[in-house]
């Protein structure tokens, strides 16, 4: 399958992507359905070779977006195009070459590896499924090769995941994702469940692997300090919509959207030099409204310190405020 990218070298393009989950609240006599608006119309594009970061809190829709990319869910509407091919359908309906090309590393290393199998079996699975074993090359050698790439010793293939630490398990999950030689990897909070001292090792390895194999990453996290050091471009989501997209430098040095500023001002930091980079303290108030009950107008109006009258009436559209720096707010 030839690599088909558009003129901007975009490997993944999402347009008006929507995912609503219907919940049936019907009683015996009356029918009632409500929709959880997990993702409510987003537009973004990921260039080949970059690390695109998706930030947001719970209920923002970042995980749902990731899962739509990999194929766990099909979008309710909108388009999702990967290398020129439409992937707006669930994985069961996708051709095998797509399943080979797009891989995911899950958040929880504890449950992303089957505890009743050993590492050899776990890593063999994708190789067997995609018939990647050539004659003459034993499968064991390929598994040792994969372990080597994530810098784990070869005798680990006999171990069961329970005997590994969290960081090592996550390495195995990464090795499993790399087994099919993908070009696109979705990393769903890969280090959130891990200790800080292990996090650095994993992220550094991920960055090295990206360079070595020319991968493109869709990196999801809620940890902004982590994102600062990993992503090249960042989009922040709130209640199913993207609030701001910018390059990593711009995002942190000149956050435009009030939600971005609120998030940045809430993170705990360690060093004084970082304190200077934080925007002035915007004390966060209130909680994220439920995605079932999105407020009319701009969905951030329940918590925004800069809200004006128009914010309750009209939902803002994404505008390019500065070159390659987009935000969705009436008051910028």
């Amino acid at each position: 399958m030839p690599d088909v990218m558009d003129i901007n070298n975009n490997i993944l393009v999402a347009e008006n992507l929507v995912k609503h989950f219907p919940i049936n609240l019907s009683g015996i006599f009356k029918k009632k359905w409500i929709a959880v608006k997990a993702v409510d119309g987003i537009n973004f594009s990921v260039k080949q070779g970059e690390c695109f970061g998706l930030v947001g809190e719970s209920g923002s829709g970042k995980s749902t977006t990731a899962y739509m990319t990999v194929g766990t869910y099909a979008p309710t509407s909108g388009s999702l195009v990967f290398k020129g091919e439409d992937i707006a359908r669930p994985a069961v309906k996708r051709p095998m070459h797509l399943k080979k090309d797009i891989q995911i590393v899950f958040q929880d290393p504890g449950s992303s590896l089957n505890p009743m199998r050993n590492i050899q079996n776990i890593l063999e699975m994708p190789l067997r499924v995609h018939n990647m074993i050539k004659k003459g090359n034993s499968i064991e050698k390929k598994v040792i090769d994969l372990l080597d790439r994530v810098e784990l010793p070869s005798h680990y293939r006999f171990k069961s995941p329970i005997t590994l630490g969290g960081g090592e398990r996550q390495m195995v999950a990464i090795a499993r994702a790399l087994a099919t030689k993908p070009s696109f990897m979705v990393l769903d909070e890969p280090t959130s469940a891990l200790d800080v001292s292990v996090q650095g090792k994993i992220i550094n390895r991920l960055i090295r692997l990206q360079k070595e194999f020319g991968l493109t990453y869709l990196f999801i996290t809620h940890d902004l300090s982590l994102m600062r050091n990993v992503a090249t471009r960042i989009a922040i989501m709130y209640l199913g919509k993207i609030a701001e997209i910018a390059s990593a430098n711009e995002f942190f040095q000149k956050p435009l959207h009030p939600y971005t500023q609120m998030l940045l001002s809430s993170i705990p930091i360690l060093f004084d030099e970082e304190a200077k980079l934080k925007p002035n303290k915007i004390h966060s108030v209130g909680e994220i409204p439920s995605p079932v009950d999105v407020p009319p107008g701009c969905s951030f109006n329940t918590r925004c310190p800069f809200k004006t009258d128009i914010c309750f009436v009209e939902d803002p559209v994404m505008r390019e405020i500065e070159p390659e720096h987009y935000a969705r707010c009436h008051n910028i």
Partner: protein
Amino acid sequence: MSETLLDIKNLHVWFKVYGGVLKVLNGVNFNVKFGEKVGLVGEAGCGKTTTMKALLRVLPNLALIPEGDIFVRGKNILKLNSRELADLRGRGLSMIFQDPTSALNPVFTIGQQLYDIIKYSAGSSGQKVANKKNVALSALYEARLPDAERMLDSYPIQLSGGMRQRVCIAFAIATARDLLIADEPTTNLDVTIQDQVLRLIRDLVEKKGASLILITHSLGLAREITERVYVMYAGNMIEMAATSLLFKKPFHPYTQGLLSSVPRLSGGGFAEGIPGRIPDYRNPPPGCRFEPRCQYAFEPCSKAMPPYINVGDGHQVACYLYQDVQGDRKNA
């Protein structure tokens, strides 16, 4: 000393398992004064939860305490009988857990659970608490929960994560306590809610004149809330200092490694983390437990666990690299 509320002296805790004994805690020294906010920082597997469980006397049956004492207000709580223990739990200590969803019983309303706590807070004296409802309402009000009357009749499943954690805080401060133990209280919450909840804990603790032990793996949080911090590694407290001092100038190689692993908001990529893994508790290193991973290890490190060295201003380090400093000598 009369101003010390909690004093853990040389605590050893062992667990019986297949093939031997896990020598988890290796002589832990930890104290908290009245009205003080102390942080306990350490990564997964370092023994901080075990220490707290020993303090609350809820260690599993397979655990032994071969050596060490825990004094609360001068009384050795390892030697209490069940009546005195009920007193301690009803009136002296309270705990806020990491996961508010599993800390709240889903089949009882908030009100019912709160009344139970108020009832048992009388301890062994058996007195009836007058006006349980007022006490409950004022606790919910202090925890900044809206609509306290309706909250009493709500079930935990109707609340969001942040609200549940605030309910747990209300449970903890409903009756007068000397010591509040918060075990990773905000790990499962969003960053903006985390900020609110932590400020609430800090304000309440200050208002009631209680002491706080904040257990966390996030150094940033410890920096924001506490006055004094202990750093724990593999069953030992390896460093202790006033918060501002610790973060400005960490002495122990582990603390230095930990601080350098935290991603900065100012960018700059990731450090490689700390090589190696936590030791096998069945066969821990005979000397300093960090020695196998320490880049500065030299001759005495493998012989015996280093004692606490005073490096001035109440800053203590368990490391052979340093020597006692004359002058400011405060006990741990």
